[in-house]
């Protein structure tokens, strides 16, 4: 019988114990000497009962050992050689001592099967006799056969089954003949995790010298987000996710460790990598701007195409260190998506997952309901007056009087209408169904899935459909040759994506801005008998929302194919050559019709985009691994060629010759512009991993990139990285409560080319003309139409990251800590810098600037309660990122990147401030705090532009709790962001239009203003009621009035799931079934705004601007998951 002597008894220091024995020749029991080593090295040593009895070693030798710097293994070897015993290392800190004479095996056989929770067999699992090296692996069905040593004949044996990602399971076997099934459960010991790192290389998490975080696919499929990136919200420290409120097919914005680039066009988002190969994450057309019109819509990003049901896991590589092997685009972090694969099994595995959710508006703004529609304190009593004041709440005090006339021409009681948003919008609905089949044998394993997502947005008529087919094949062609292939085909179609920004064709304008006594339904149907837009207000550009819903047309379709194939050949033992090619390609068609009869464009307008976009990569790697005694070595060398290309035709035109006939061919004036972009990056790279006794790990990498987008004289960049880790707890004495302590550190550089091609040489383009030929400087931001200066000397960006971290497992692995500090410096950043138009150009490409992101990330997780029936797992993550612009180009202290409609606020990069800082004006005050007035106009003086706040939250947190009671589980995720500001364009209008409570002062008797003039003399005036509208209208010139703290805490996710008992359904051959109530964005627990602080309309760098977009939603529904 084997006993396992774990170091669980209280221990005294070995130095104390030595004193009990005389020096020189005194003997010491071997058992005691071994105990000393166990204590000193924190190791576990197993041996057969009685094996050490009556064996002694020289005490002086033991004393020598204890003061030496020898390793545990060397010490053991020295002790045991004298007594003719052997030992073996069987785990990171586990050894077994045996006598070679006892090692003979007889025919005592155990047969069994290792299965997962769902009952499927586990191929490749390890089964060992506990405390020995005797073991075997499972076959393709999970079966194993294990011969036991003769010493255990007739004795119960303990078998330990293990498999990567699952907790070790021990079973005691007494009856060898009884069928044996060992069921493995998911591991909650994070340090045993294997994670997928750069280039798809799986590594033990404990080996890594940098921070990674993993999210399992199963965490993404119950409470779904249409865009899977949004599901990362709050889950990973330092990953700042901002889901957009742009309807069901919208984009996401993910920022890891802050904005690393000051450029407007480098979008600062991480690189998405699918099964080791980069994928495209572009938004067709361009991301919406804060001042665009009707076609200013979010057309969805690349990650939106991925079906969460196909995802095995998502690994987030946070820094340049993790991403060094991905080169240029890895500088902002990498999100690695590993898709599910088939595995060898009997029969076909069938999985079905179905989710139905409904969505409702998350925040209804609070308006004033004291004074109603009208102007100058007078309510409208004629249709003409109603039309002039359709969006003005500057009327009389609400009195319920019945001579009030609305824009429908009818009289109505003059009372508040508080439900316009509810009346205008509908409940959103989303249905997702995925069916996956998997199976195979050693030669070919497959997984094939089909998925359909059908969404109707809040905006009537706004729909999104995504069909996905995903096929994954893998297997071995010969013992040395293996392959893997992925094919995914998507069809995404969307209708009526809602616009944001300016009022033109923005359907959200009417329900938000309509006067507070008018019912938005009075605007129905939005068109007259001729099909022309009906007037509801004094500005034709503020389009009737129902006209947008009923008459505007907007549809797009994206056909996307992602294909990957790799072959891997083992040239010699441990020497593997692998080649992979991948292409991510989509064809995109977009059409936007401004119909005949639109007030601001009476004859109609047409906009279309036809594009094909592809990202192609060819990668070859050679890997070699070798274990030389206690040193593990692994080498990798590789080369990659990346080509991305875009071919686009932009169609635009005005005036449908035959009214209401919406064809490009029917345009009075149509223009088609061709746009082509190509860029290549060629790379070679290598890495070497060293591992000493699983205590020290060291990885060095080097990469050289050549960028086609840079100056021919300066287009090559070599950059290195080094990272290492050290398992402190294996070497240094730790208190019992400490299970593991790991230190890690990393330093890496990442180069980067220009984000856009053609930034080196100035070119000239034809300007569409129906007369003489016209020519002008080409736009250096394709499609923007703005002339910009190229840069013949454009060189690479260099981003340098240093990070250090600590991981600890405490209290029997029930509490774990992970702390990281990082400092990331981006230098020579390539910025298409906005410059004064007086230079003749709107922008210039510069290697301008230096930006620093430094911060800390903390993760605390634990299992406060773990009983047979009830468990509570909790995890809290917190990240703080300090972002600062250290330097721009010589002579330029501030560059402008974006502005709101009306230029009421700007997004700037200014030295000393955070990147993408919100900039604007304040009301000028004198030193005594008096408002300074311009005596001529009678309005407060606006200050010069000044920084107003960060557009990106520096502090983010997530708090996740999993409760499990028998078959019931509850997941509750809270998250929060703090420290950022939001500028509200809605509130500018809501102030100008008299909707906000802040516009109430002065309504009855006029507003008394007091202050000083520019020259300091006292100033006062009374704004009469008739002038109030203009007075408050002018507030838009003071940005600070519309700026709010953007911080929040939200109840992000709730999943209440019930795992149906298997026995009830076993007759249907169901392996498992789970039904869950799911909810996302359920409650806002803290906010400082009159709107959802995450209200966002663009995934560009220009965050921090709220702009009359579709309201954000909460969603709730049911999820059903079954496996056959």
């Amino acid at each position, binding site marked *: 019988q084997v006993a396992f002597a774990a170091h669980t008894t209280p221990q005294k220091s070995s130095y104390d114990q030595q004193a009990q024995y005389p020096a020189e020749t005194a003997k010491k029991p071997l058992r005691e000497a071994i105990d000393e080593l166990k204590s000193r090295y924190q190791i576990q040593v197993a041996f057969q009962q009685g094996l050490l009895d009556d064996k002694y070693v020289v005490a002086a030798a033991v004393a020598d050992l204890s003061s030496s710097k020898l390793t545990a293994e060397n010490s053991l070897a020295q002790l045991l050689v004298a007594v003719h015993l052997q030992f073996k290392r069987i785990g990171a800190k586990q050894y077994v001592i045996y006598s070679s004479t006892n090692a003979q095996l007889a025919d005592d056989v155990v047969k069994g099967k290792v299965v997962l929770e769902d009952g499927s067999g586990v191929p490749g699992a390890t089964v060992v006799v506990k405390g020995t090296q005797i073991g075997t692996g499972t076959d393709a069905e999970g079966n194993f056969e294990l011969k036991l040593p003769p010493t255990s004949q007739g004795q119960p044996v303990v078998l330990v089954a293990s498999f990567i990602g699952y907790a070790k399971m021990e079973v005691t076997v007494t009856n060898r003949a009884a069928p044996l099934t060992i069921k493995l459960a998911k591991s909650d010991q994070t340090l045993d995790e294997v994670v997928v790192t750069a280039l798809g290389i799986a590594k033990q998490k404990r080996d890594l010298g940098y921070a990674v975080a993993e999210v399992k696919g199963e965490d993404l499929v119950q409470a779904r987000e249409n865009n899977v990136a949004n599901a990362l919200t709050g889950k990973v420290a330092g990953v700042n996710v901002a889901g957009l409120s742009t309807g069901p097919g919208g984009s996401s914005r993910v920022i890891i460790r802050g904005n690393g680039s000051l450029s407007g066009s480098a979008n600062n988002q991480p690189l998405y990598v699918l099964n080791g190969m980069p994928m495209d994450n572009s938004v067709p057309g361009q991301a919406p701007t804060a001042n665009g019109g009707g076609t200013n819509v979010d057309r969805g990003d690349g990650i939106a195409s991925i079906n969460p049901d196909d995802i095995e896991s998502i690994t987030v590589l946070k820094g340049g260190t993790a991403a060094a092997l991905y080169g240029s685009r890895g500088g902002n972090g990498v999100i690695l998506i590993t898709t599910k694969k088939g595995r060898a099994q009997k029969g076909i595995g069938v999985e079905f997952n179905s989710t139905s959710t409904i969505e409702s508006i998350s925040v209804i703004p609070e308006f004033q309901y004291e004074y109603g529609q009208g102007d*100058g304190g007078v309510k409208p009593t*004629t249709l003409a007056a109603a*039309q002039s004041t359709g969006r003005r709440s500057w009327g009389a005090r609400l009195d319920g009087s019945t001579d009030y006339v609305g824009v429908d021409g009818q009289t109505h009681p003059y009372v508040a209408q508080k439900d316009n948003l509810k009346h205008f919008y509908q409940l959103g609905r989303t249905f997702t169904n995925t069916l996956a089949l998997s199976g195979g044998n050693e030669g070919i394993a497959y997984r094939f899935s089909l998925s359909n997502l059908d969404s109707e947005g809040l905006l009537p008529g706004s729909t999104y459909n995504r069909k996905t087919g995903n096929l994954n094949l893998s297997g071995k062609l010969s013992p040395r040759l293996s392959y893997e292939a992925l094919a995914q085909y998507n069809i995404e179609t969307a209708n009526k994506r809602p616009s944001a920004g300016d009022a033109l064709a923005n359907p959200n304008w009417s329900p938000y801005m309509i006067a507070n006594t008018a019912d938005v339904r009075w605007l129905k149907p939005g068109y007259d008998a001729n099909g022309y837009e009906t*007037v509801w207000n*004094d*500005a034709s550009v503020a389009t009737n929302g129902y006209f947008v819903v009923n008459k505007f047309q907007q549809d797009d379709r994206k056909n996307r194919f992602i294909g990957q194939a790799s072959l891997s050949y083992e040239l010699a033992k441990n020497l593997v050559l692998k080649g992979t090619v991948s292409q991510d390609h989509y064809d995109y068609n977009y059409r936007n019709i401004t119909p005949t009869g639109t007030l*601001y464009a*009476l004859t109609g307008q047409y906009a279309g985009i036809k594009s094909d976009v592809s990202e192609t990569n060819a990668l070859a790697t050679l890997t070699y691994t070798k274990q030389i005694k206690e040193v593990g070595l692994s080498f990798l060398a590789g080369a990659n060629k990346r080509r991305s290309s875009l071919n686009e035709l932009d169609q635009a035109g005005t005036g449908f010759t035959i009214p209401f006939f919406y064809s490009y061919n029917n345009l009075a*004036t149509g223009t088609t512009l061709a*746009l082509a972009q190509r860029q*290549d990056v060629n790379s070679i790279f290598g890495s070497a991993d060293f591992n000493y006794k699983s205590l020290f790990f060291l990885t060095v990498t080097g990469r050289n990139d*050549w960028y*086609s*987008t840079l100056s021919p004289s300066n287009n090559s960049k070599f950059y290195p990285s080094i990272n290492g880790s050290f398992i402190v707890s294996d070497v240094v004495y730790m208190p019992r409560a400490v299970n593991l302590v790991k230190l890690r550190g990393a330093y890496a550089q990442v180069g980067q080319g220009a984000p856009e091609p*053609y930034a080196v*040489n*100035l*070119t*000239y*383009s034809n*300007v569409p*003309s129906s*007369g*003489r*030929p*016209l*020519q*002008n*400087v*080409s736009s250096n931001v394709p499609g923007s139409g703005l*002339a910009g*200066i190229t840069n013949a000397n454009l060189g690479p960006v260099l981003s340098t990251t240093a990070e250090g971290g600590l991981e600890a497992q405490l209290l029997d692995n029930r509490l774990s800590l992970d702390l990281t500090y990082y400092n990331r410096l981006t230098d020579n950043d390539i910025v298409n810098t*906005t*410059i*004064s*138009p*007086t*230079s*003749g*150009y*709107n922008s*210039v490409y510069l290697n301008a600037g230096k930006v620093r992101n430094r911060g800390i990330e903390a993760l605390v997780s634990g299992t406060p309660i773990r009983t047979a029936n009830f468990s509570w797992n909790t995890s809290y993550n917190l990240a703080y990122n300090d972002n600062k612009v250290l330097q721009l180009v010589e002579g*330029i*202290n*501030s560059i*402008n990147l974006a*502005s709101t409609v009306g230029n009421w606020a*700007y997004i700037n990069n200014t030295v000393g401030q955070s990147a993408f800082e919100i900039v604007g004006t304040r009301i000028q005050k004198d030193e005594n705090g008096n408002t300074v007035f311009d*005596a*001529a*106009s*009678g*309005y407060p003086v606006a200050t010069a*532009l000044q920084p107003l706040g960060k557009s990106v939250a520096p502090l983010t947190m997530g708090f996740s709790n999993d409760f499990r009671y028998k078959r019931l589980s509850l997941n509750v995720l809270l998250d929060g962001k703090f420290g950022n500001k939001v500028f509200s364009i809605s509130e500018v209008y809501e102030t100008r239009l008299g909707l906000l409570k802040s516009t109430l002062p002065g309504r009855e008797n006029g507003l008394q203003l007091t202050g000083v003039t520019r020259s300091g003399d006292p100033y006062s005036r009374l704004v*009469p009621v008739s*002038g109030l509208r*203009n007075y408050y*209208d*002018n507030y838009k*010139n003071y940005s600070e009035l519309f700026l709010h703290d953007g911080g929040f805490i939200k109840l992000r996710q709730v999943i209440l799931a019930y795992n149906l008992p298997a026995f009830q359904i076993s007759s249907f051959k169901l392996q498992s079934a789970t039904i869950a109530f799911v909810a996302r964005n359920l409650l806002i627990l803290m906010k400082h705004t009159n709107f959802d602080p995450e209200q966002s309309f663009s995934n560009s760098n220009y965050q921090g601007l709220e702009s009359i977009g579709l309201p954000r939603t909460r969603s709730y529904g049911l999820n059903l998951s079954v496996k056959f």
Partner: protein
Amino acid sequence: CTKDFEEINTNPNAVGTITPEYVFTKAQYDGVANMLYLLLGTMQYTTSFNDVAGFGSKYIASQVNSSSAAFSTAYPNALNEINLVINAVRDDPAKVNMLAAARIWRVYCYSRLTDVYGDVPYFQANQGYTDAQYTPAYDPQKDIYADMLKELDEAATSLDPAKPTFGAADLLYNGNTAQWKKFAYSLMLRLGMRLTKVDIAAAQTWATKALAGGVITEDADIAKVNYLASGQIINQNPLAYNLLINDYIAANGSTNQEGGKYQKVFIDYLKQTRDPRLGIISVVYTGGTPNQTDTAFAKQQGMPANLSAKPANFAQLSEPNPKTVLLLNSPRLVFTAAESYFLQTEAALRGWSGGAAPTLYSNGVRAALRQWAIISPTDGALSAQRITGYVNNNQLVAGSFDDKMKQIYTQFWVSIFPDAQEAFASYRRTGDPTLTPNNYPGNATGGQFPRRFLYPVSEQNLNTAAYNAAIARQGPNTLLTRVYWDK
């Protein structure tokens, strides 16, 4: 590893060198198109009950920043383009006419800009690509004027009929060097006269020089750009296009998107003076029926500029005639014979020329009435009898210099329509015609007439030091700060 990189990084849809002709044509289109439409309201030709669109006639404080549009547009378009042309042709003696035309056009574009905003970047402007000059200094308007006049002088004398020209790429004169010379001297006359308030001697010098060089007096020499009725927007009359698209396209008199109409001041004046141009310029829609226009004198009625809501009689009010002012293929008149005659009349009154002021004045009025036939031969032409009748009824009266100036520049105001920008300059210099500023609630000037328009706020952000220096020199960036020649 970098094989084919240069080819990969070459835009397949653009070329590496300019074709000066094509860029010059673009610069002409852009130079003409860059106007502040709001000045039509300021000069009391038009107004709107919608006070956002009504900024021009109401100077509402909250909308002041809309007045900076022409500044931001000018540089990356017409001004930079003309610089590209100049750089491309300056070193080739055979291209002297192209250079001269470009230099003259540059003066035209800059003069429009500086007259509205005052000090603007000039000597260091448009050098972003050639000299990495991203923050050009603002130059005093005085220096800009001196250089513009010098440029006109040099360019006019350098023209050589024997050398090649831009030919058909020249929208103004089809390469005719004699006409370019007249245009140059006409501009010299305009800019010279601009200085009468601030530097009478310089004004006299330049006006005299211009007159000696020969200015535009014949209809055939009028500087104008012709347009097409359809096709690309850039090929259509920009003023007509903008008015049409923004306000008058419904052509029914009632659903004008931005609530625009002719202003009462303008219509009342035309009616009061029995001006035959009224029916050419203005229409009302009968019964709000689309396209049923009525040009009858008695029916024309302008809208007051002090409304904040749509008046009940909106549909009965006068608005621009779709067959003339809104005609997409009508030419834009850049410099008219009428303007030249009025300026000559003033020069004669000042004794700077031998001409007879009354004759010159009558020639001006006659030319002004004739020029609508250039806008539309079918709907703009007045009979010789009506022209003569009006000219005879509007002779230059005997009286004081000021009386005569008032008569000239009131007639100038009517004649220069719809070039409100030139009317705005002339008004600030002469004070004529007598216009009552609009004291609309919330106006930015305390009810005074604007004297300039605002620099873009973005200049504070992007060109801070230069902007601050300009403010310190010229005065605060408000509507009431006066430009150099308006002191």
